């Protein structure tokens, strides 16, 4: 016997409303593939292009706590803003992020990253300078590579000094797609 879908949905909604979840997650459809989106009560914890749940569950329960559940309501706000972004109707995200597991350096870099506007790009060195560590371009590159909340924290807007796209943890074709959506690339 399997649990009827409506009953399953009801429980997941009640669990979300109860405020007892450490984190809730769901898949969000997008033009660049399904996104795994997870959030705690503090904000977004994870956006991933890898929709394989198992490994994310492990990470989420280690970072946020073991009460992790697929809970579509928990990420309703993020889903709406991502939909609007991909439809070209949203240029800035109004979502809080939960960066509890990152180092102070990473947090500084991500804070500056979040300020790069829609449709603009910057370089790794420039971002390092803005974060107060002008010599840390390489470390900034690593930070972009390990960005847990891509798209919302727009690491796709950071490119090489010579204008090359350099790389993207989600695959270079996705970086191209995002920069095309934002009108940076044709």
């Amino acid at each position, binding site marked *: *016997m*399997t*649990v009827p879908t409506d*009953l*399953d949905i*009801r*429980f997941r909604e*009640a*669990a979300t409303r*109860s405020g*007892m*979840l*450490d984190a809730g997650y769901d898949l969000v459809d997008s033009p660049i593939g399904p996104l795994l989106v997870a959030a705690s009560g503090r904000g977004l914890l994870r956006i991933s292009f890898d929709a394989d*749940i198992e490994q994310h*569950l*492990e990470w*989420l*329960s280690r970072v946020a*706590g*073991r*009460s*992790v*559940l*697929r809970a579509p309501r928990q990420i309703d706000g993020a889903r709406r803003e991502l939909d609007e972004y991909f439809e070209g109707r949203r240029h800035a995200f109004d979502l809080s992020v939960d960066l509890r597991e990152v180092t102070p350096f990473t947090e500084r870099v991500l804070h500056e990253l979040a300020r790069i506007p829609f449709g603009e790009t910057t370089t790794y060195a420039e971002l390092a300078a803005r974060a107060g560590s002008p010599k840390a371009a390489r470390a900034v590159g690593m930070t972009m590579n390990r960005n847990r909340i891509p798209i919302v924290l727009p690491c796709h807007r950071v490119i090489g000094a010579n204008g090359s796209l350099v790389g993207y943890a989600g695959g270079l074709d996705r970086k191209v797609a995002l920069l095309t959506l934002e009108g940076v690339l044709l």
Partner: protein
Amino acid sequence: MMSTVAIPPFEIFYAEHNSEVLGLLRRKVGRDRADDAFQETFLRALRAYDRLEHGEHLRTWVLTIASHVAIDVHRRTKPTSEMPEIPHEDTRPAYEDLGELTDGLPAKERAAVVLRYGYDLTYDQIATALDSSPDAARQAASSGVRRLRKEARP
């Protein structure tokens, strides 16, 4: 010492046990009332989940919570004459180890004794499972044990 069994993320725990819990509840309180009891069971489990100390006996733990929710449902709803008898042979007690021994105890005491001595839960956890207070859980367990001692005397 036995190695500690890791506690899985709640999603895994829920997916693994939800159909068995629903089956148990349908047998115990009937189809109509099983849905609410199902939700209540897993909300109680979620409330206690952070405080679990190891991942052993999770199945028994959640079936015990479900059994107790079923008892609460019966208590809340005054039975009417039309209500069919719950077939006794169909109800599978979750407390397999201490089940027979504690069979004669009042429901709350039996649950407290089994959870405390069968599964080594703390009174805080038991309180959560039974939706009561740690003090009440301690009291229920100790009066259950007293009752068992009395019954064990020849």
